[in-house]
């Protein structure tokens, strides 16, 4: 096996180009540019082409030759029928059209417009999904035998029970860090004992629900989007539909309901871990007695804060599951779409959770604050 070679002999009138060796993809010389320039040069001189020395020719070799000839047959070509047939196949291809998209200085405006339209469409589809779920709930009230308990409990276990260790760990560590940093400040004012008020309000009312929401969005939200998305890619959702099983009843509703139940419980669990962490840290840092901490906590943190935390957990769970399912159902049957939708799902869920948290803060500003 020899690499593709070319040899030029000058004769009076025109020259002859003799090609030899294997003109195949694996045997073309690397880099290709020198060979191409040579061939183009010979073609420009109007040489005769002699291919009897070519042992093998494949489509890659044919394309290289054809393009060097400027996409038309040379005036004199000696080639076997087989070689002619392969070259003819290359000749049948129309050249690539230069596809240059005109650059517009206002492209950013168009991008912004597309973004707004996409956001609008998402909001509309989301509303439709919520409406469908409401209809499903009405239907299930009338036909309680069809309530998908099994899926509900499976999601409750996967998104709730299995998330217990990680939420406890994160909550505990946040509590430790918060308590440690606050105690450094409080000590300078001699206000050590206010650590209980500070930790109690911030963890129970604010940090617990938000941390759990971020964890659950990353953990269960992405899983839900990916699961529903893959079911769309593999047409499993269509299979469900042909069996007369509603995808919203069987797939979306149990997830939304289970997360709405699991999240408040996780919030309580995570806040408890946070308080525990803060208590341990305060004890080590400022020698605050555990007994004092526990007995003071209910006095300085009104119980309304617990209810606000649980209420937030419920809302966040609902939103995370809804957003996850919405994006899952929008996955188109390719891998790229699956990854981008999963990303959107998590980003949108966390953003929405933070926005709703701010709304909560405004609406509940007169509730549960000590001294009000």
């Amino acid at each position, binding site marked *: 096996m020899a690499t593709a070679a070319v040899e030029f002999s000058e004769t009076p009138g025109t020259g002859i180009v003799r090609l030899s060796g294997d003109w*195949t*993809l*694996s045997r*073309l010389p*690397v*880099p*290709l540019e020198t060979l191409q320039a040579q061939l183009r040069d010979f073609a420009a001189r109007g040489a005769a082409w002699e291919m009897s020395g070519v042992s093998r020719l*494949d*489509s*890659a070799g*044919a*394309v*290289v030759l*054809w*393009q060097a000839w400027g996409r038309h047959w040379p005036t004199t070509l000696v080639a076997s029928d087989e070689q002619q047939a392969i070259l003819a*196949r*290359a000749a*049948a*291809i*129309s*050249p*690539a059209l230069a596809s240059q998209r005109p650059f517009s200085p206002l492209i950013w405006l168009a991008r912004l417009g597309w973004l707004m339209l996409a956001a609008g469409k998402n909001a509309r589809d989301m509303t439709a999904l919520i409406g469908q779920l409401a209809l499903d709930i009405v239907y299930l009230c009338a036909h309680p035998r069809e309530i998908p308990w099994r899926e509900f409990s499976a999601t409750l276990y996967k998104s709730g029970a299995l998330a217990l260790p990680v939420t406890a760990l994160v909550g505990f560590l946040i509590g430790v860090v918060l308590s440690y940093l606050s105690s450094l400040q409080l000590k300078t004012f001699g206000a050590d004992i206010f650590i209980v008020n500070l930790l109690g309000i911030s963890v129970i009312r604010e940090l617990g629900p938000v941390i759990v929401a971020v964890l659950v969005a990353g953990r269960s939200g992405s899983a839900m989007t990916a699961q529903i998305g893959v079911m769309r*890619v593999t047409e499993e959702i269509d299979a469900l539909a042909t069996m007369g099983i509603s995808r919203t009843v069987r797939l979306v509703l149990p997830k939304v309901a289970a997360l709405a139940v699991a999240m408040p419980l996780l919030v309580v669990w995570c806040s408890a871990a946070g308080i525990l962490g803060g208590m341990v840290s305060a004890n080590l840092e400022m020698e605050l007695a555990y007994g004092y901490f526990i007995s003071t906590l209910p006095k300085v943190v009104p119980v309304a804060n617990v209810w606000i935390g649980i209420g937030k957990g419920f809302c966040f769970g609902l939103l995370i599951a809804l957003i996850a399912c919405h994006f899952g159902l929008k996955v*188109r*049957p*390719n*891998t*790229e*779409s699956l990854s981008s939708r999963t990303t959107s799902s998590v980003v949108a869920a966390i953003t929405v959770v933070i926005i709703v948290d701010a709304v909560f803060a405004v609406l509940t500003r007169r509730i549960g604050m000590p001294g009000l």
Partner: protein
Amino acid sequence: MTPAIELRGVTTRFGKVVIHDDIHLDVRTGDILCLVGGSGSGKTTLLREIVGLLAPTHGTVRLFGQAVLDPDPRVRRDVRRRFGMLFQQGALFSALNVFDNIAFPLRELRILDKSHIHDLVFMKLAMVELEPRHAMLMPAELSGGMIKRVALARALALEPELLVLDEPTAGLDPDLADNFVQLIRTLQKQLGFTVAMVTHDLDTLAGLATRVAVLAGQRIIADASPAEVLDVDHPFIKTFFCSEHARSVMRRRL
């Protein structure tokens, strides 16, 4: 001449289950080998071992005289550029359109420039009898027959010397399957590559194979031309080839 495929003492075990027991097989250049066997006899496993997706428990697999699982990554890559594989479901990259799917292996070579790749892709499309307007479709928009054709075009992109087919006609209706078999045979005549395939479809086997290897009871019990395999006295061959339908297919084609 070194055989295109050379299996030496290939033994495969999954846990305690023995799939293959000391298999020897040579496929000569230019052969069209068809691997048949009952369901679960390890045909696809053997095919995956041939292309190096799976390492056999014992024994070696050589393609063109070089080990598929050579420790040197350059040798491994060079061997892999000399064969093309057609997967049962096509295995097209779902995020890329038809053009980019076929262009992908060509671009990975980093030898050819844009206009070469463009022309080559359209040549391959023409070879598998698809039209240029199909180039911009996404895999999800293709019919089953078209997926097989695009996958074949992608398998042929690097001008392989060996084409490995896993159930090439599974999931196609008889008419489409016939067309596809015809297409592979035409291309094989034109390009002269070796073919190794797994199929349970007798029409495909009778239409293509120049050699048949029968896998049963963890071993290759027959390895000969289709006509000769029919005469082998083995219960599996009797049931597989000698039902009324099978006999008529084989008579018609051979």
